[in-house]
């Protein structure tokens, strides 16, 4: 809009007024009024002129106040140069002058004086004070407002507000940078957490960093334990500083700052206004007089408390530092919860894996393929209601023409029952000399197992049967087990028999009577556990002895091998039960003659 030449030309258009005022308040006041009217004549806005009036009065009064006796008679020179760009004011006095401060601060709000220089500085853009032997000159400048007559006082106010905004901005920057620091730190911690699963080390690093960043003299992290009723020390800094002592009861709200913070779930400050009680565990820490206790909460659940302690009365905990405390502790709390969940998951995984191993072992203990001389066939199966069960069956060859059949049901289910079932299997196999005398075998077995079983408050039922292929005789004995079913010849009705005998592990000395059978052509025997007969359908009906007997007879007629008969029997059982889950292990051995 204008060339530099035109600008200098324009600035050449200027008017000047010079006044020699007496060195007293009255003359200065008159001079400032004169200048004000003159500036308005030069086209300055009323308010701009008024602000120069005030500046001039303040400057002149300063000259009057700081004059000497000799200079009292000398005038105060005032020169105002008004161009269309700016106003320059020179105030010359002949006194000794004074030290014009670089920065002019507002005095205390209560102070009577000291505002003159502040007003001069605030209402001008440039302010220079030149001291000389013959006199001092104060040069004040401010550009004219080009647009609509601006309120010069408002300009001062604007500057003030700008300064306030800058302060606010600087506070925000500090907070932002502390937020940024915490964010960076948290990312770093997250990375570290992946590398180390040790919560103690990890929390130690976070908390010692937090202590450094907040300038605390001590820090203590206690975790809520025993069903959220007590606080126990987890980490404390310095390590030997404080934090020992017994757990703090969270109910002791009056006696402990930490308990108070934990129970009301709010920050609790302590210091001059709220000193530590005599029996407060924090008071045990040497020289700790102030600080802040912050409860760590995750989803409303109390994890613990973190306390920053200071040896001085004023902890200088700025909002940014408190923010830092909150952020770090929240993060630590989340890691704590995560670690606990992780632990539980790991434990569950380990347990599941152990159960798988146990199930594998148990399966491997079952006879893989039992060989019997033709035309006999044999089948055995064991279905556990759980991954591992307490049922067991075993088929042990005994010489060229003997076969030992064992079936047992340990009270209870799961791993303990499976362990005892495995013991029974091993004990039976260790006594081949007694296979031909099942009653004696059970008696001996009971004696062997009695201590183990009664010690574990458990017992087992068992059925053992010895088949002599040379004469097709079957000798059985029962330790409280459900009956076996025998079809003596092809197409014959199934007969069952209950041999008396206490379960294993109830009494030390028990006699077990034996029963004898003879398998004719097409004869068959079924030994099973009560998981079969006690299986229920969705309506709650039991499969029962009658159905089993009936189905056993039918499947023998419908099939030709033990394997097929066993499969068909189990299919019928399954059909009866429909979708109802088996509540007990189901085990059977089926042996038949062609």
């Amino acid at each position: 809009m204008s060339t530099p030449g035109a600008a200098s030309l324009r600035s050449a258009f200027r008017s000047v007024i010079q006044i020699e005022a007496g060195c007293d308040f009255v003359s200065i006041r008159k001079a400032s009024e004169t200048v004000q009217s003159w500036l308005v004549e030069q086209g300055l806005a009323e308010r701009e002129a008024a602000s120069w009036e005030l500046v001039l009065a303040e400057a002149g009064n300063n000259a009057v106040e700081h004059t000497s006796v000799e200079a009292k008679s000398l005038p105060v020179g005032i020169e105002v140069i008004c161009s269309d760009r700016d106003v320059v004011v020179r105030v010359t006095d002949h006194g000794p002058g004074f030290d014009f401060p670089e920065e002019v601060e507002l005095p205390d709000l209560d102070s009577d004086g000291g505002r003159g220089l502040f007003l001069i500085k605030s209402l001008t853009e440039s302010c220079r004070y030149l001291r000389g032997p013959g006199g001092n000159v104060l040069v004040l400048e401010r550009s004219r407002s080009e647009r609509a007559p601006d309120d010069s006082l408002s300009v001062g106010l604007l500057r003030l507000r700008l300064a306030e905004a800058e302060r606010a901005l600087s506070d925000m920057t500090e907070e932002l940078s502390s937020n940024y620091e915490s964010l960076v730190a948290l990312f770093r911690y997250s990375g570290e957490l992946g590398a180390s699963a040790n919560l103690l080390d990890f929390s130690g690093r976070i908390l010692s960093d937090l202590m450094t960043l907040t300038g605390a003299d001590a820090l203590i992290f206690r975790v809520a334990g025993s069903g959220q009723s007590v606080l126990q020390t987890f980490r404390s800094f310095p390590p030997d500083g404080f934090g020992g002592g017994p757990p703090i009861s969270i109910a002791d709200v009056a006696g402990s700052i930490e308990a108070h913070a934990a129970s009301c779930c709010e920050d609790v400050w302590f210091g001059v206004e709220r000193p530590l009680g005599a029996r407060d565990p924090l008071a045990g820490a040497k020289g700790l007089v102030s600080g802040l206790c912050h409860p760590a909460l995750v989803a409303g659940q109390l994890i613990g408390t973190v306390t920053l302690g200071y040896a001085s009365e004023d902890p200088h905990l700025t909002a940014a530092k408190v923010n830092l405390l909150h952020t770090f502790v929240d993060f630590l709390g989340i890691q704590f919860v995560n670690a606990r969940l992780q632990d539980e998951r790991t434990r569950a995984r380990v347990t599941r894996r152990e159960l798988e191993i146990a199930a594998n072992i148990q399966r491997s203990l079952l006879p893989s393929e039992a060989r019997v001389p033709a035309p006999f066939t044999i089948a055995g199966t064991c279905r556990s209601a759980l991954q591992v069960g307490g049922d067991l069956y075993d088929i042990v060859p005994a010489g060229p023409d003997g076969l030992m059949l064992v079936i047992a049901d340990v009270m209870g289910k799961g791993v303990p029952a499976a362990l005892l079932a495995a013991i029974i299997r091993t004990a039976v196999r260790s006594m081949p000399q007694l296979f031909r005398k099942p009653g004696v075998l059970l008696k001996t077995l009971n004696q062997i197992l009695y201590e183990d079983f009664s010690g574990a408050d458990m017992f087992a039922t068992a059925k053992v049967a010895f088949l002599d292929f040379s004469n097709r005789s079957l000798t059985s004995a029962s330790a409280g087990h459900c009956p076996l079913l025998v079809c003596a010849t092809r197409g014959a009705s199934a007969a069952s028999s209950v041999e008396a005998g206490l379960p294993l592990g109830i009494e030390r000395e028990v006699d077990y009577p034996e029963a004898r059978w003879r398998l004719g052509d097409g004869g068959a025997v079924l030994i099973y556990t009560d998981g079969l007969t006690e299986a229920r359908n969705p309506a709650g009906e039991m499969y029962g002895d009658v159905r089993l007997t009936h189905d056993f007879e039918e499947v023998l007629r419908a099939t030709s091998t033990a394997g097929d008969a066993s499969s068909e029997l189990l299919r019928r059982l399954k059909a009866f039960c429909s979708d109802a889950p088996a509540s007990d292990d189901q085990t059977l051995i089926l042996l038949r003659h062609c």
Partner: protein
Amino acid sequence: MHQREDGTFEVGGLVELAALNAAQVRDEIKSRMGADCLALEMDLASVTFLDSSGLGTLISLHKALRTRGGEFRIVNAAPNVLQILELTRLHRVFQIITR
């Protein structure tokens, strides 16, 4: 300058409050205001010029009232006067009322 019926001492009619008259105004008010007066109201409606000495007078009167447990109020200050109060942040100290 007079005492109202409710006991408030009221000062008004000043054209300026500045180096020239600030000390005089302060002393006159202090001497004429009763010792038991617990409220002082400065009506600044007519004040067109206020400088730092004037501010000193206002602060001195404010302190005097506060010391005796009384109240100091500034009433009807013109915009330019108000702005000087704001500039020096004394608006945070004084009770300022516009009627």
